[in-house]
């Protein structure tokens, strides 16, 4: 199938007082239209930076972004503006991303007007349609963000993102701040919209059960690198990277009769400042050996299942 988005060896480095921080460090993957790629990993591993770099909110330090068969890594001006309408992002905190002085109706209408595709009356109609689409009652059209609860605010943010007619949407922890009962509402909404509008998603989260549910493919990040990429139904069934295994085993199970002992990872994730060439997880990895000090590569260990670990074959035998 055709590819909508292809990321090649993408890098984003930040200069910090302590050295160069490799927030995203040589990530490659591609994504077919209508599919969802889930990105998981602990805070600080570079998920948000990856999402922002991919949609050109921030400039990359290296690598390529190919969108709709076009290299968009360096597009500027009008082209970038056009790209922005096709690539949208939804953040975790809807309150922070909404203008507190704009009503629901104005928030959505202004986003529509920016596209220059609507006359004012058309924009009014389209606003109404979008509100309906994301499940916000028309009664709330004149409400301000502070008058809405978290779930409704996130619906407004989603409506605004859809106003530009995107093909590709990055959700950066879009349901993490919401209660379980509301989370499920928003996840269902995102899936319905995907189906109705043929959207392609990157869904960033630290919640592994949610990501498995919504994604077709899952990428696991550790300190700026993608350590495992696999079809989503394989992540729980047969995780191959030692970090993925540890991460999964740390999730407390709701099955009280099969409480597995979690693999307790010692230490904490640090920041990848001036990282050494070898495996970044090796300091916490129980399988660590001398060869882990050498650069790793992403290898296809099983069909469509890629692992960034030179010992992946031995330890999964």
């Amino acid at each position: 199938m055709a590819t909508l988005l292809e990321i090649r060896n993408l890098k984003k480095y930040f200069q910090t007082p302590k050295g160069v921080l490799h927030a995203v460090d040589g990530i490659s993957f591609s994504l077919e239209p209508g599919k969802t790629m889930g990105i998981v990993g602990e805070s600080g591993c570079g998920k948000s930076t990856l999402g922002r770099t991919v949609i050109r909110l921030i400039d990359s330090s290296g690598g390529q972004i190919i969108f709709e068969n076009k290299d968009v890594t360096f597009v500027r001006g009008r082209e970038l503006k056009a790209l922005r309408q096709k690539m949208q992002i939804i953040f975790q905190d809807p309150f922070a991303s909404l203008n507190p002085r704009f009503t629901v109706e104005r928030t959505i209408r202004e986003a529509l007007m920016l596209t220059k595709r609507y006359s004012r009356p058309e924009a009014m109609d389209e606003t109404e349609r979008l509100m309906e689409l994301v499940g916000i009652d028309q009664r709330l059209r004149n409400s301000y963000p502070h008058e809405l609860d978290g779930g409704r605010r996130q619906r407004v943010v989603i409506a605004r993102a859809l106003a530009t007619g995107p093909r590709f949407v990055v959700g950066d922890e879009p349901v993490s701040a919401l209660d379980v009962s509301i989370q499920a509402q928003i996840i269902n909404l995102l899936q319905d919209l995907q189906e109705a509008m043929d959207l392609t998603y990157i869904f960033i989260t630290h919640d592994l059960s949610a990501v498995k549910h919504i994604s077709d493919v899952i990428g696991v990040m550790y300190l700026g690198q993608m350590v495992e990429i696999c079809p989503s139904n394989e992540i729980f069934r047969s995780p191959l990277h030692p970090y993925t295994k540890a991460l999964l085993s740390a999730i407390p199970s709701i099955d009280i009769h099969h409480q597995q002992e979690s693999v307790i990872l010692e230490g904490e994730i640090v920041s990848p400042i001036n990282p050494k060439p070898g495996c970044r997880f090796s300091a916490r990895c129980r399988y660590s050996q001398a060869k882990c000090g050498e650069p790793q590569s992403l290898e296809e260990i099983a069909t469509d299942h890629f692992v960034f670990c030179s010992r992946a074959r031995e330890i999964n035998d």
Partner: protein
Amino acid sequence: MQNGETQRGELLRIRDLVVEYTSEGETIHAVNGVSLELKKGKTLGLLGETGAGKTTIAKSVMRILPETTSKINSGEIYLNGKDVLLLSEKKMRAIRGKSASMIFQDPMTALDPVRRVGEQIEEVIRLHNNTGKNEAQQWAMEMLETVGIKADRAREYPHQFSGGMKQRVVIAIALACKPELLLADEPTTALDVTIQAQILRMIEKLKKELDMSMLLITHDLGVVASQCDDVAVIYAGEILESGSREDIYDHPTHPYTRGLFDALPDINKEVRRLTPITGRMIDPTDLPKGCYFQPRCAYAKKSCRHERREMAEISPGHHCRCTHFA
């Protein structure tokens, strides 16, 4: 159970607690007649979503509710048989951090950003014990080691610690005087799962060593499953269902409890759509007459709109406010 003091083997008993806040001239009915029992040495999970009243209950036990904007309207809170609501502030100060400690989701609510962490641990030790400076210092360093932090970091400031490490410091402060009761209010909600696993394992171990009892407040069904002996499910300031962990996980009975389980993505099943609980939490300034969950309940009958239901014992020790699935 009858009114009155703590039963044998019980550390904490809350009876019919009612707490309100006032804000902008409105009354917020945060806790609406909650009763809970925590047995000695056990962990009781208080499970509920945002705004359910969980933190308010814990703060009521510690008597740290905001003075001017909150009011405990009625109820009793027996800790070791004494109603803490009747104690003077002076007596209460002797209890806080000594018999009962509380930890919060955000460690910075408990830490002073401009003081060394060692000093902050020493302070609580010296407040409750007749120890000299050196001894308290030694003790504080031991506490740091206990929570997995090298003693020489006692001289550092909170900002030099990561989120997980700050929470460890908070736990060191909370447990320094070996409390009987730990009120843990979403202690790992802000942490990554791998750090959560470290912290929960550590709390579990210390709980055993100190023979402590814990009220563990969380919205996470997995955390409750892995840590708790008993569970109380709270919604809109009211306990809807309570029982042993097995009662709640094997036989969830209240439509809300069942809804919580159903809303979670199940990692072992392929389902295309999740089953959310429809609607949203009721307005705590405007409580409905009937069942508080009724506006969101798929099984509501006409009577649910008008009649309040009492807790019914549906099997020994398993109580539920709704008998639809009982």
